[in-house]
């Protein structure tokens, strides 16, 4: 389908480049090295970081921000390591994801992937305790992902019943793992989140 040039947003590239990590977007010369080496392309056939960058440079803001493929990047850095133009591809994609999250917060976009919920739930643990608390993370993430507390708990049991027993038997998780490992000066970490956000 041809691009509707009158619907392009010429400012989108600047919006990305103003996000930390998005700075080098404009250096891309479309060689496709990133896509060719990306392990996700072997599983998700539509996945194409080169194309996401091209569409971003063209200003196809809506199409880019609503692309479900944004949320399956592994941050494995294969693309970044190979890009001849030193585009930090993986950071560019993450900058785009953060713009999409802001759009969703503003009520202008619906993200189908649960990934933003997971990342937020993860960071909430750090904000509260200074370290990751696995159980706290699961208790926040699953209900949000499934849409209700009961459904969330059921999904969590399904994913973690065998795994939890296995970890318990091997004494990788004991009664101590039930409680968060809280650092002493949580106020210092809280300040980071207050001033930067997540």
């Amino acid at each position: 389908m041809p691009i509707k040039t009158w619907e392009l947003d010429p400012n989108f590239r600047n919006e990305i480049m103003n996000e930390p990590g998005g700075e080098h977007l404009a250096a891309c010369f479309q060689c496709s090295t990133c896509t060719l080496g990306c392990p996700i392309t072997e599983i998700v056939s539509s996945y194409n970081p080169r194309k996401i960058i091209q569409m971003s440079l063209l200003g196809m803001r809506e199409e880019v921000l609503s692309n479900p493929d944004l949320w399956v990047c592994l941050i494995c850095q294969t693309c970044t390591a190979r890009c001849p133009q030193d585009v930090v591809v993986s950071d560019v994609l993450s900058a785009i994801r953060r713009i999409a999250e802001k759009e969703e917060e503003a009520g202008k976009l619906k993200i189908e992937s649960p990934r933003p919920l997971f990342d937020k739930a993860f960071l909430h643990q750090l904000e509260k305790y200074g370290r990751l608390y696995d159980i706290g993370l699961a208790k926040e993430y699953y209900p949000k992902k499934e849409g209700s507390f009961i459904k969330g708990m059921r999904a969590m049991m399904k994913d973690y019943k065998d795994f939890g027993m296995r970890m318990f038997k091997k004494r990788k998780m004991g009664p101590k793992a039930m409680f968060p490992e809280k650092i002493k000066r949580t106020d210092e970490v809280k300040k980071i989140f207050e001033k930067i956000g997540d």
Partner: protein
Amino acid sequence: MNGKKLAYYPGCPSAGTAVDQDMSTRAVFEKLGIELAEVEDWNCCGAAEAENPILVYALNARNLAIAEKEGLDIVTPCSICYYNLERSNIALKNDESLRAKMRDIDGSLDYKGGIKARHVLDVFVNEIGMEELKRKIEKKVNVKVAPYYGCYLGRPPVTAFDDPDDPILMDQLIELIGGECVDFSYMKTKCCGGPLMMTRADIAFEMAKNVLEAAKRAGADCIVLACPLCGMMLDAKQPDIEKALNIKIGMPVIYITQLLGLALGIDSKKLGLDKAAVDTKEIVGKVV
């Protein structure tokens, strides 16, 4: 490295799924006569979930500043912690305005850029050195190994300390202790799928399965790796992967610190080898 002491950053998995990695790291350094002083009151590095680089820099500035006060370089056994610590270190070292920004957030982030962050593998091979390790080796570990490097040892270029396409540091250690590396070059640095475990388990399982099956096809007795997320995917979740995809793998997975520990003559229990989900008795049995 300042004499015989390093600041130690265990990382969050050290309290649970990667307690064996933590145990073996501590035991190996003790045996090598290098003191590890745990970074006092350390906080999480942000893992793969903190996506905003500024947030990552701030979280890690706090840990770097604590170690800097002691005048010690930081060492960590976790590849993701290493990546976050060292990329923050480099960004902060080279940018006074970024350091000022950190100080504005909180005094505890006042890092001056005076230390380095390193991964244990880098310290073993490039700091302690093969000659010194060779002198301390007490046992031969006669195993066929698939050396699995994952993402953050050779990538991205700013923090890499090994070759991005064909890393060799673990291979060298494995050969030093009498093991044999199977042909695994095309899989060595491919992602295990871990970052998508909680949001796209189907993709994560498929990727982990590919690594496990490649090791099996190559005739390996075990996979050796250096990252707790890889460890969780390939070992702790291996029975879940077998069940979900209706396959049988049974591939033991151990950390490089555990393998080195065996060669240094450390007791397998002290190295946490009994804690793996897939039994490691056969590997321990090959120590002579």
